[in-house]
């Protein structure tokens, strides 16, 4: 199982790097979907099948479809591909790379000091639901209020007079 974790993790990292480097926006989006599915596999391996399936249904299956939907409407061609290529100039990489490397170093030091357990326990659908409607019910309600606000705003913006 732990081999699966490392393979899925490597795919997630490579796919996410490819999202940034890809100049064709549709291909970039495909890599992002791949990365999300790899994260779903990681969740599954770590004993959270419900979170894994939700990752696939909600992120890979619904949100990314809407992204693709918008890209289809925009009709982006060679012009945006050239623009992307200009933005990805080597000079622009220097400062973010240094900062990201520092953060990665810090993260590795913190992670190496944690004593983690490699045999995860299974968290099924029942346990997640009991938590969502038990101790975290306030967070669920707040999230639904946020979604409702988004819905009302979208309705207002889309309304034609």
């Amino acid at each position: 199982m732990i081999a699966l974790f490392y393979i899925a993790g490597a795919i997630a990292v490579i796919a996410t790097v490819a999202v940034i480097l890809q100049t064709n926006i549709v291909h970039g989006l495909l890599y992002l979907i791949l990365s999300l599915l790899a994260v779903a596999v990681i969740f599954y391996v770590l004993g959270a099948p419900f979170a894994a399936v939700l990752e696939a249904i909600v992120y890979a299956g619904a949100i990314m479809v809407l992204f693709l939907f918008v890209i289809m409407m925009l009709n982006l061609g060679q012009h945006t591909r050239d623009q992307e290529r200009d933005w990805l100039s080597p000079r622009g990489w220097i400062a973010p790379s240094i900062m990201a490397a520092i953060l990665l170093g810090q993260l590795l030091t913190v992670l190496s000091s944690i004593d983690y357990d490699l045999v995860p326990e299974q968290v099924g659908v029942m346990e997640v639901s009991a938590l969502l409607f038990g101790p975290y019910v306030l967070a669920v309600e707040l999230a639904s209020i946020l979604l409702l606000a988004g819905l009302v705003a979208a309705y207002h913006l889309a309304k034609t007079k």
Partner: protein
Amino acid sequence: MELEIGSALSIGLILGVVIITAALLITVERRLLGFWQERLGPNRVGWFGSLQVVADMIKIFTKEDWVPPFADKFSFVIAPGIIMTVVLLSFAVIPFAPNIGVIDSNIGVLFVLAMASLGAYSVMLGGLSSDNKYALLGSLRAAAQMVSYEVFMGISLLGVVALTGSFNMREIVESQADGWYIIPQFIGFVIFLIAGVAESHRLPFDIPEAEQEICAGYHTEYSGMKFGMFFVAEYIGLVLISSLITVLFFGGWLGPAFLPPVIWFAIKVFVFIAFFILMRAAVPRPRYDQLMSYGWLFLLPLSLVNLLVTGVIILSTQ
């Protein structure tokens, strides 16, 4: 039946049977449509036209497999593969009989929903990469239709899941031993049936590929076996939806003991396949905006009310 759940032999057999059934359905559908529309249908090749599928396959394999020069080749080539992969993967969680199946998963129902939502990419990428206005229109329609109907499909299943107390398909079948869920969950069944037709975009909801309006929709530019994969995947999707209805609402393999369980499963699935073909012969296609408003304004509230009432009944009888 010496097969074990998940053995390589049973996986191979299930895949083979599913694909061969889907291929045979091409002929069966044309014959049944002919019967219901009072014409002959294909009856020349083989016994009563039974070898028509072989002729169709030879034709489709030997056709020129053409990729348009203006298409985005990467997306164009992988699009038909995505839909084949996700529909075949969905069969992994379907319990065909007490000892036949690929995996026995606790998230079975959710897995099917996840695969159905990934199937939308095939249609969208196929249309987008073709760089053709009809294909783009078709895939825009497909995306909106599939994302919308997925919602009602998921909610309509939750009544069954709540009654069973599990997402495991095998447990869902076993809990129907004293009564199929079609009776307590009739509304859920109807919504699932409609959403299933929309999800596999078959007539009357084949608006993404409506020939009279937008050529062939998202697969306008496809030919040869790439088109064949879209075509066969649609039939596999039909078998999948029929199997899901059988498992969730009609007791799966359960039936009187004079026939083996897997035969009962096959009979029930075939009845639903025939029903879907009859729908194709009998029901006209709605307009696109009618389809969307029907879904969001009628099916969504209905499925929510169904879930709410089911919950109240379960809580009050406990």
